[in-house]
């Protein structure tokens, strides 16, 4: 049975109808990983117990037990802790680390009956926009192996695009779900900050990080978002608000809804292929009945400096825990039995972290250091508040905002990796949603002239996700490419 381009809902119906078992579905995807992933490098490790878990799910199905994801395989970004299964953050620092507990996101997926297929590749500690910073090697874009899949959740995006998993979990600190989703032609959802527990997720920038799904369809993304959202006693920043059943209510009919076009995004220098797809998406929303209005976010031009100051400052604090004492990498001290404790830390961290992680820890250390704090970290926080207020004003005029995900289509491996500032500028359209704490998603719209995918970004006000999913549904219906796979897959 061909499952490679089926949605999660379609596979669920097949399992529920008894025409395929969880073991068969799981084996199908494990076989595809075996066959295709030596080229793509999207998985760091498959779960050696996946088939056992699928067998247990089949027993539950036979005994009449229910679960929203019962028997369905899910890939997990290797930034989320999985009990008794190696979790590396794609870093030498955590190679071989076996977590004693699972992230709340993983627990919730398993409570609904999901099978963990394996752990997906990423930029080290989720720091990167091309997946070229992984200790375990770059991930390739399945639409063209010479191109990057985006990052940091590059493995999560490439695996769904190539039909190696029906759905995966990523994390998004400044675009790390939405940008690779756009580059690989899949749906990617960054939830409202506070919807999804960060417990058990290797911390990068705690006021920005959120986990979310990458999937073939908007409705699949809505379902996974429902499962992983909700208050968690282990993360005090999660909201007690009720989680709506977005997937059950989803509708591509946008009559009576207002879609805001961000003036500054339309004036930005966009690649002609990106511009063309964005215009098609706006037309789709009009056809779906939406009224188009213009909104303005003047401070979005400051998104990159504000984001990188906040994110690196928080990272410099979060990554201070890697000290070579309690877990993770420790430099060898065989030939140098006694030295200073500072030297112990410096060598361990210097050898355990890759260059981009070091660069960001140091940028953050600088931004927080005496004499620079007011000009960098505090200033960024102040502009962040003003930007969040601009979004509040925009959402008085529009229910949902539409814009590009990136200014260009996917770029080639090696093209931007030597210039960190140029790489950071990739994130110009995605970082604002993290700074303001609002939800955002990327939905595939079409392809560049070179045949690489291009998505569009939709954003709604915090805790108003339904209208974002509805707009995504409208775009998806008109784009009509959700079952398409790259050649050869």
């Amino acid at each position, binding site marked *: 049975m061909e499952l490679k381009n089926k949605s999660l809902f379609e596979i669920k119906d097949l399992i529920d109808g008894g025409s395929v078992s969880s073991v068969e579905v799981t084996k199908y995807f494990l076989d595809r990983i075996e066959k295709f992933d030596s080229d793509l490098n999207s998985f760091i490790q498959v779960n050696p117990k996946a088939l056992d878990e699928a067998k247990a799910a089949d027993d539950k199905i036979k005994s009449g037990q229910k679960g929203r994801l019962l028997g369905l395989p899910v890939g997990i970004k290797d930034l989320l802790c999985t009990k008794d299964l190696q979790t590396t953050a794609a870093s030498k620092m955590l190679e071989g680390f076996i977590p004693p507990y699972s992230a709340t996101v993983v627990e919730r997926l398993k409570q609904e009956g999901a099978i963990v297929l394996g752990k997906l590749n990423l930029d080290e500690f989720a720091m990167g926009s091309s997946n070229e910073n992984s200790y375990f090697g770059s991930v390739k874009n399945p639409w063209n192996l010479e191109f990057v899949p985006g990052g940091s959740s590059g493995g999560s995006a490439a695996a769904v695009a190539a039909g190696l998993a029906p759905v995966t979990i990523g994390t998004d600190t400044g675009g790390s779900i939405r940008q690779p989703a756009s580059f690989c032609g899949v749906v990617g959802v960054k939830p409202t900050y506070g919807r999804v527990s960060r417990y058990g997720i290797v911390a990068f920038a705690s006021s920005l990080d959120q986990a979310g799904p990458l999937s073939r369809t908007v409705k699949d993304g809505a379902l996974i978002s429902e499962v992983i959202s909700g208050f968690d*006693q282990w993360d005090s920043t999660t909201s007690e608000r009720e989680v709506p059943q977005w997937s059950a209510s989803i509708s591509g009919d946008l009559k009576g809804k207002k879609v805001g076009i961000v003036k500054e995004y339309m004036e930005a220098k966009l690649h002609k292929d990106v511009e063309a797809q964005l215009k098609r998406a706006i037309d789709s929303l009009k056809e779906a009945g939406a009224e188009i209005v213009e909104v303005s976010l003047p401070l979005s031009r*400051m998104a990159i*400096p504000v984001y*990188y100051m906040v994110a690196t400052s928080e990272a410099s604090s979060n990554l201070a825990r890697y000290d070579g004492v309690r877990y993770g990498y420790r430099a060898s001290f065989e030939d140098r039995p*006694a030295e200073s404790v500072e030297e112990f*830390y410096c060598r361990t*961290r210097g050898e355990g972290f890759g260059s981009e992680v070091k660069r960001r820890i140091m940028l953050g250390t*600088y931004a927080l250091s005496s004499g620079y704090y007011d000009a960098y970290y505090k200033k960024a926080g102040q502009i962040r508040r003003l930007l969040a207020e601009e979004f509040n004003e925009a959402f008085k005029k529009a229910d949902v905002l539409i814009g590009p995900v990136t200014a260009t289509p996917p770029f080639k491996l090696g093209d931007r990796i030597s210039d960190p500032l140029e790489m950071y500028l990739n994130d110009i359209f995605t970082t604002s949603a993290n700074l303001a*704490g609002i939800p955002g998603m990327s939905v595939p719209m079409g392809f560049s002239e070179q045949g690489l995918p291009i998505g569009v970004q939709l954003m709604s006000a915090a805790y108003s996700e339904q209208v974002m999913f509805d707009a995504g549904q409208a775009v998806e219906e008109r784009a009509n490419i959700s079952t398409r796979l790259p050649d050869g897959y």
Partner: protein
Amino acid sequence: MISKEQILKIAQLARLSLTEEEEAQFSPQFSAILGYFEQMSEVDTSSVEPLITPTEMEFHWREDQSQNWEMGEKVAGQAPDHSGNLFKVPPVVG
């Protein structure tokens, strides 16, 4: 401009040793990145309170209850070196 001496000072504050290549690259890279970030000074932020987190920050009070936690050895087993539930470290001076 961020000089090489400043780079080494920041690395020391962050407890990071750098490779020779990183030492050479970080100075021009930090100069370019921080130079670009200077544009933040264009925005008037007088009397604006920094936004530290977008969470709604509901405070959740709970009773402080003790619980048995029996993973001590399992957790210590993740350390580069351990003895029972204790972390072992090399001898250090200073």
